């Protein structure tokens, strides 16, 4: 039997140089479409009011979070259910730095360092755990850090921290955050592509499909898993940092909220796990729907979100992107069995 990449693409295609001339017409069309969409998003703020800027910024934020989760959960198969812990740590890093007069960029650098550092430190012991155990370990990590932040004076305890407002008019600052989060989404897509088309990503997929075999093949599984988790942590932390500056207020229940992680989780699963654009697509669909539809439901919106999670799990567990690909045969890939 031919060795297969999880998507079902024969592993050999990886060796082919990625020349545009070799691309299928479908692939070319999709690429042009995506580039056009990117350009539209780049120039859209000139025509958008603060409300839509905010909606789109939120979508970009969740797209980045979903892609970050995809790196560890989609590619490497480790369900980091409590990954929101890095969102909270990133947010608090920026808040504590800025409240002491530091710049936003310094805060962001601190957020990145702290999050990646924690993932590098905790990765080797925690990533030994499989399945549920790893999932719950990350949830416990989140709750533990939340409790500690809740009780420390440096972090303002349960009162939270108020950060100085960004300069400029509301419209200007809305545009700033639009571009910041668009940038983070761009980085997220790059990271996703890096995982899809690099040896590291391939190794991560091998670990997901059979860790024992991957190790027997000579892959340094612990190092690979830790790298995937660190990339995920760094991206999540940076987005959390931007969020803190954007909302100019952080408190433990908001930034360590499990619902953020679960939404990101649903988005990447809904869009398509272990794909480059799946999590982005999932974020656009779900966050848009949540803004437009669920804002009309008010007191039932938590339940409505819960219900839609259940329906997605039952009826579209393989994700939107694969669903479309199957329909339109966009990709040359045949679908392998999904785990």
């Amino acid at each position, binding site marked *: 039997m031919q060795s297969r990449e999880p998507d079902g693409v024969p592993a050999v295609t990886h060796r082919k140089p990625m020349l545009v001339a070799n691309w299928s017409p479908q692939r070319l069309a999709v690429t042009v479409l995506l580039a056009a969409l990117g350009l539209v998003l780049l120039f859209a703020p000139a025509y958008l009011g603060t409300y839509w800027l905010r909606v789109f910024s939120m979508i970009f934020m969740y797209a980045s979070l979903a892609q970050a989760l995809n790196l560890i*959960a989609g590619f490497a198969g480790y*369900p980091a*259910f409590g990954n929101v812990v890095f969102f909270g740590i990133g947010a608090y890093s920026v808040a504590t730095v800025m409240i002491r007069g530091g710049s936003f960029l310094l805060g962001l650098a601190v957020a990145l360092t702290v999050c990646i550092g924690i993932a590098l430190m905790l990765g080797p*012991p*925690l990533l*030994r*755990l*499989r*399945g*549920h*155990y790893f*999932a*719950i*370990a990350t*949830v*416990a*990590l989140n*709750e*533990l850090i939340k*409790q*500690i932040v*809740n*009780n420390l004076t440096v972090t303002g305890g349960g009162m939270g921290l108020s950060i100085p407002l960004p300069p400029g008019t509301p419209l200007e600052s809305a545009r700033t955050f639009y571009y910041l989060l668009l940038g983070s989404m761009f980085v997220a897509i790059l990271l996703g592509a890096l995982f899809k088309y690099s040896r590291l990503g391939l190794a991560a997929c091998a670990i997901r499909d059979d*860790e*024992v075999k991957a*190790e027997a093949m000579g892959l340094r599984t612990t190092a690979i898993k830790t790298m995937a988790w660190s990339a995920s942590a760094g991206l999540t932390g940076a987005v959390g940092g931007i969020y803190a500056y954007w909302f100019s207020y952080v408190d433990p229940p908001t930034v360590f909220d*499990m*619902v953020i992680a*679960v939404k990101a*989780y*649903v988005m990447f*699963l809904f869009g398509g*796990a272990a794909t480059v654009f799946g999590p982005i697509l999932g974020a656009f669909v779900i966050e848009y729907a949540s803004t437009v539809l669920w804002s009309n439901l008010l*007191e*039932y919106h*938590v*339940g409505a*979100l*819960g*219900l*839609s*999670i*259940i329906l997605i*799990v*039952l009826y579209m*567990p393989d994700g939107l992107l694969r669903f479309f690909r199957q329909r339109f045969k966009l990709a040359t890939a045949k679908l392998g069995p*999904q*785990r």
Partner: protein
Amino acid sequence: MLFVQALVTGVLLGGLYALMGMAFSLLWGVMNIINLAHGSMIVTGAYVAFVLNQRLGIDPVLTLPFSATVLFVFGYVLQRHVINRVVQRNIFLTLLLTFGVDMMLINFNTVMFTADVRSINTWYSGSSFDLGGVRIAHTRLLVFVLALLLTLALHQFLKNSRTGRAIRATAQDPKAASVLGVNVPHVYAVTFGLSAAIAGAAGSLLAIVYAFAPGSGAAFTLKSFVIVILGGLGNVYGVVLSGIFLGVCENLVSSFGHPGYRDAVSFGLLLLILVLRPTGFFGKRSYAVSRA
């Protein structure tokens, strides 16, 4: 003396924790499901007790069968018609699914009973007795004894009854069990119903000694997980001991350390155990670490 007091209170609290842990480990052991809605089911049981107590004046202890029945039906239907469709497929999916159920339960409880913190007062709520200088509240002792009785009853049921044997057979090998005439989807549904019923009963007991709100479930889910990991999956005595151990730890920390870190204890403990000894202290087997 304060130390002994904290110790005793912790032990009494631990009985309830053990019961929660038993219900949680039943699902985990039989279907490999981590039920993230476990805590919310407990809280729903507490609300059933609350409503019966407020409207009809029934003593919370006597509401136990009602909350257990309500939750049993809920659990059975949920498993039979929803979770059975994805069970054994992918742990991502069952985690997400039960989280969705959790959100719906929280929303339901919030809409029905508001987000206010509730508690039940009975005529014996404030009373306590003195045992060699240690004050023991009647309610806590009552809850401890009832919780332990229920835990042992569940254990006996699983061990000796016909349904219990079917459940254990299915846990070992669903295919072999179905060849031998066990209706596996039904047994799965009964298992979930049973676990939910115990959660509901634990909720009734919880309402006697604790205040609760729609959102207080998450902490119980995590604590149940800690207890099961600490005690070892499928080990009843381990679960009882670790429930008591967790209760004692929490009480010692809130008495002598910082009360704000009370819940942090269980989470820190959980991380520590997972890193140091993923099979728990009394564990027979473990799915935790992939490599032998």
